[in-house]
């Protein structure tokens, strides 16, 4: 899976792409009033911050210098009011920022999830679930945090910087110029260090995910490691990774512990310059251009001046790294749907979230493949199907037989419209299925996978998955039909037993029975079964075979078949080889032909033949 590798994270040198951030800012500005009120809260906060030193000076000048306590009470009241206003502003500011952040991530997640429900299956075949999970969770979280707080940080620091610079120039422009000399090297230093630190942090993160992977493998493969007696060597290999982690973490930390003192040192040079030139000037006495008050103010400003510069450097560095997240999330949202209903179709039948079921024509189940060709990669010359033709009457059972990769699954995928033909068309009840909506087809379709998928929740909920409004009687009736009722009743809480995440608490055979019940309840016109090859104990196997019989009744069915009994009972067997129908007919007809099918199945089931070869 190239392109989904860690290399995605190695983009330290990328420039900030404004168009991406502009687009993301729109999410923030959906809440104009919130953003505006945050700006106001911020303005109040910085005003109060600037007022505290003034208040102390006022207290000293007014009360101590005049040796009076008159007016001290109103002063205290005013001070307390300011403190309270500040406290309230802080509460509002932080919670408002948090609200903005959570709203943005909520919105982006919703949008991305809706997109994911519409994307075609070809997208899912190419994209690992882990990759999508990372986009949906950590990338979006990172992004929203950036948009919400970076916005605030940048606004706050730049106002502060501008304010201080202006005040310094107003107080004394010469001294201001001298102090500002420190700024360019400081900015440069910050940028260089932040980039280097980011690079190391990325390396640390990458190594960290390696460690997680190694733990995962170590635990999942513990028994294998034991049986292969690899404990020592695996531990040695693991230690190499943890050493790498240790070294890059220390290096990353060291870098930041060089950076911080350097910034403070540069700042102190600024203060020292102000002190030296300003102080020398003040000391000239009557010729002085600077008062002692101005000097004190300058020194105070220089100590506050350099923190915001650091903040800006940090925010830009973080933006750079978050940009990779942003690109990945936006590209997910922008992924084109390969299978889309046309606007005309959507107007009549609705989309997958709001289907207009009342307009759905009833499906009988007659199916035609007409000159269907298909390749998984557009442009690749590896055609999986080539001018494939097939007519199936409503209610027939078709068994697809053939080697792995012959095209059996492709036929099923095309029928379900998980993929669309590259050329040719597929008719359902005589109408090209692209003239109707995907929801129309899928609401009449039942599908049981080789690896049955259950959702966490109760057995009841899983059977009722396709028809959430089903009554208990209906669910039980469906379970009884496929002989799942007995084993379900043996569970601790019967139908209300939790199946665990992905159905881990049940065996594969049990999961299959439940998924058959799910199909029976949904009562689809077209049924698709991808039979499992894995071995299931003989008794459950019998139950499954009986279940299949019920499911197939009165439906048009396609089975990617492995069991002899299912194949024998099919109305028609299609032997697929290299994307074509190689042989076709009933079991007996095909056996009489003594062709490929005959070979395939005599090989598979004639134990005598097997014995002879083994005896050699």
């Amino acid at each position: 899976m190239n392109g989904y590798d860690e290399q995605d994270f190695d983009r330290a040198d990328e420039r900030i792409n404004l168009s991406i951030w502009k687009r993301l800012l729109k999410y923030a500005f959906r809440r104009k009033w919130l953003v505006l009120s945050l700006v106001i809260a911020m303005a109040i906060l910085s005003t109060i911050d600037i007022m505290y030193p003034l208040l102390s000076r006022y207290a000293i000048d007014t009360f101590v210098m005049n040796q009076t306590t008159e007016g001290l009470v109103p002063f205290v009241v005013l001070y307390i009011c300011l403190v309270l206003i500040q406290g309230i502003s802080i509460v509002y500011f932080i919670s408002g920022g948090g609200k903005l952040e959570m709203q943005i991530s909520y919105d982006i997640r919703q949008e991305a999830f809706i997109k994911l429900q519409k994307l075609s299956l070809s997208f899912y075949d190419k994209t690992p679930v882990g990759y999508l999970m990372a986009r949906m969770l950590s990338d979006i979280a990172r992004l929203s945090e950036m948009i919400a707080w970076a916005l605030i940080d940048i606004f706050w620091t730049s106002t502060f910087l501008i304010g201080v610079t202006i005040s310094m120039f107003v107080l004394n422009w010469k001294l201001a110029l001298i102090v500002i000399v420190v700024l360019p090297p400081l900015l440069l230093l910050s940028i260089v260090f932040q980039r280097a630190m980011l690079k190391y942090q990325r390396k640390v993160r990458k190594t960290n995910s390696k460690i997680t992977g190694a733990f995962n493998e170590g635990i999942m493969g513990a028994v294998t490691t034991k049986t292969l007696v690899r404990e020592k060597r695996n531990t040695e290999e693991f230690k190499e990774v943890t050493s790498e982690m240790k070294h890059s973490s220390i290096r990353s930390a060291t870098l930041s512990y060089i950076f911080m003192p350097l910034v403070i040192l540069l700042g102190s040079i600024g203060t020292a310059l102000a002190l030296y030139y300003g102080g020398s000037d003040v000391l000239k006495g009557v010729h002085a251009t600077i008062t002692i008050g101005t000097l004190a103010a300058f020194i105070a400003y220089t100590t506050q001046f350099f923190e915001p510069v650091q903040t800006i450097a940090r925010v830009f560095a973080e933006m750079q790294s978050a940009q990779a997240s942003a690109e990945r999330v936006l590209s997910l949202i922008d992924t084109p749907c390969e299978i889309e209903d046309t606007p005309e179709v959507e107007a009549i039948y609705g989309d997958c979230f709001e289907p207009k079921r009342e307009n759905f024509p009833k499906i009988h189940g007659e199916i035609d493949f007409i000159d269907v060709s298909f390749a998984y990669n557009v442009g690749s010359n590896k055609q999986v199907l080539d001018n494939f033709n097939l007519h199936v009457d409503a209610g027939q059972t078709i068994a697809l037989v053939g080697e792995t990769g012959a095209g059996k699954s492709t036929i099923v995928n095309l029928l379900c419209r998980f993929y669309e033909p590259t050329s040719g068309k597929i008719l359902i009840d005589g109408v090209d299925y692209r003239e109707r909506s995907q929801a129309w087809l899928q609401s009449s379709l039942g599908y049981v996978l080789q690896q049955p998928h259950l959702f966490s929740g109760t057995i009841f909920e899983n059977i009722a998955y396709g028809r959430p409004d089903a009554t208990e009687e209906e669910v039980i009736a469906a379970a009884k039909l496929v002989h799942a009722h007995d084993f379900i009743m043996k569970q601790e809480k019967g139908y209300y037993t939790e199946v665990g995440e992905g159905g881990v608490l049940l065996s594969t055979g049990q999961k299959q029975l439940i998924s058959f019940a799910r199909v029976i309840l949904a009562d689809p016109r077209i049924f698709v079964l991808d039979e499992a090859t894995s071995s299931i104990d003989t008794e459950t196997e019998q139950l499954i075979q009986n279940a299949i019989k019920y499911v197939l009744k009165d439906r048009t069915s396609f089975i990617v078949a492995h069991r002899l009994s299912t194949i024998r009972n099919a109305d028609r067997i299609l032997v697929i080889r290299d994307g074509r129908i190689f042989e076709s007919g009933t079991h007996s007809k095909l056996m009489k032909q003594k062709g490929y099918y005959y070979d395939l199945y005599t090989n598979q089931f004639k134990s005598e033949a097997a014995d002879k070869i083994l005896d050699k």
Partner: protein
Amino acid sequence: MTSKENKKTKFSLKTLIKMMKGYKRYLLISAISLILAALIWFAIPYVSSIAVDYVIGENEEVLPSIVKSIIESIGGREFLLSHFYLLPLCLVLFTLLNGLFVFLRGRNIAIAAEGMAKNMRDALYEHLLLVPYDYHKHISTGDIIQRCTSDVDTVRRFILNQLLEVLRPITMVIITGYIMFSYNVKMAVISIALLPILTISSYFYFKYVRKYFAYSDEAEGKLSAVLQENLTGVRVVRAFAQQKNELKKFTEANKDYKDKTYKLIKMLAFYWGSSDVLGYTQILLTLVFGVYFAVTSDFTVGGIMLFTSYTAALTWPVRQLGRVLADMGKATVSLSRLDDIFNHPTEVEPGKALKPEIRGNIEFKDVCFAYDDGENVLENISFSAKQGQTIAILGSTGSGKTSLVHLLQRLYPVTRGTITIDGENINDIEMHHLRKNIGIVLQEPFLFSRTIMENIRITNPDAPEEAVYEAAKIASVHDVICEFEKGYDTLVGERGVTLSGGQKQRIAIARMLLQNAPILILDDSLSAVDTETDLAIREALNKRKGSATTFIISHRITTLCNADKILVLEDGKLVQQGTHEELIKQEGLYKRIAQIQDMLETELMEGSEE
């Protein structure tokens, strides 16, 4: 797991100290540097104030007595006036010195914390490989990984950011406390009056808020689970046209996460806001009483400035102290969760740990096996296998087939009875020696995420490539591998190709073949391979096998019927044993299954003759 956790909320400090091995001195250097850095940091503002207030403003009040005597010894104010550049220079030098100690503090604590984390990860990994198989059967992988990653990280961060952070406010309180109390006791008391409240309330607030952190984490976990299920089950969602309900489920989880996290942020916001109010109230107290005493008695302006600046400098670190102390709780919880893993005993060598040459004569004598909880798995199993024989095992799920071969490898200890190999009790054979001599392929074999070549060669890294190809050919997987773009250099697993169950089984068979062990076990390991390939593999195996004693577990009669001995297991008891010819004549499980499978055959033949 939760019940275990409740039992053990205490952790032993021993583990942490053990993990700090080799890194304690870094911790010490860091602590000393921190104190020195804090001391110098106090001196820096003094330089400016000496310059502005004393040299320029001619105000002597600002000088503490020690500083005053130092200045006087070098020539007093006159000297500083004529050498005015000295003060700015001092400022830069002090900052440089402070920076040096900040660097030393940071680098050394980083070495200590990261070194500890490495020790801990290594120890965990090794421990997890050394604990008995039984442990792995009963754990949840996710939970253990969580502990090995985020709990280790919590402890690491605790050492990196918090352990010494306790020192800083304490140092500051001691220094400023000393200065303030020696200056004016009454004012000193007032200036720190609210600080204990600030620390204590921070401490309790963060303890209280911790559960809201947990709520937010849980909600995130829920969101992640809903998403994961939707993505892995995408075909089912589509096939049942359930997008609308899925969106509803997701929206609920998404909203719940948003609301819970927002609630948490609101609580934190309340904390920052209210503790700010408390902090500034303290500064106000100092200021107002300073002013009041200055007006009514002999307190000075310099004193007011000194006390307000110290109060301001103390307030925020002291507030942080409460938080750090509260967070310490998190680290102890993490440590106890890790201790939980370390406390599980590793595999032991019960006997003489001999390393005899193993030929493959195996005997089970009245072997019983029960799990720790008393559940009987195998009862009185007795049989023998001679070197080179093939033993087939048939039985339904849960009949004990797999446990039987696990006992042979000492993945579990025998409860009663004995297993001998070449006459030696396996308990007396060194565990690793024993396992090296037994090749096993599991029904769902595990491949490591490295190349196919490395996987096959894993027990024998020096094997020539030809031997690997040869083994892969016997396992009928050579052609499949060659079809991959990178052939044998193809990566297996998440970052490489996804192999089918059958392909994995066949690669595992190749891996086993290269091991060249005198005892082989195929635990239903051809189940995902089609019958034709199954046959071909067995044929090739048979040819190659030589003198290896082979165990085959399978449901397929065709796979079993040529064995030298077939064992039929039912509910942990050995109900039948013998050759195919013998067993097919007896009433029993074997005959029943053979008949079912025979029927299929006959049906097939009838079909062709219709």
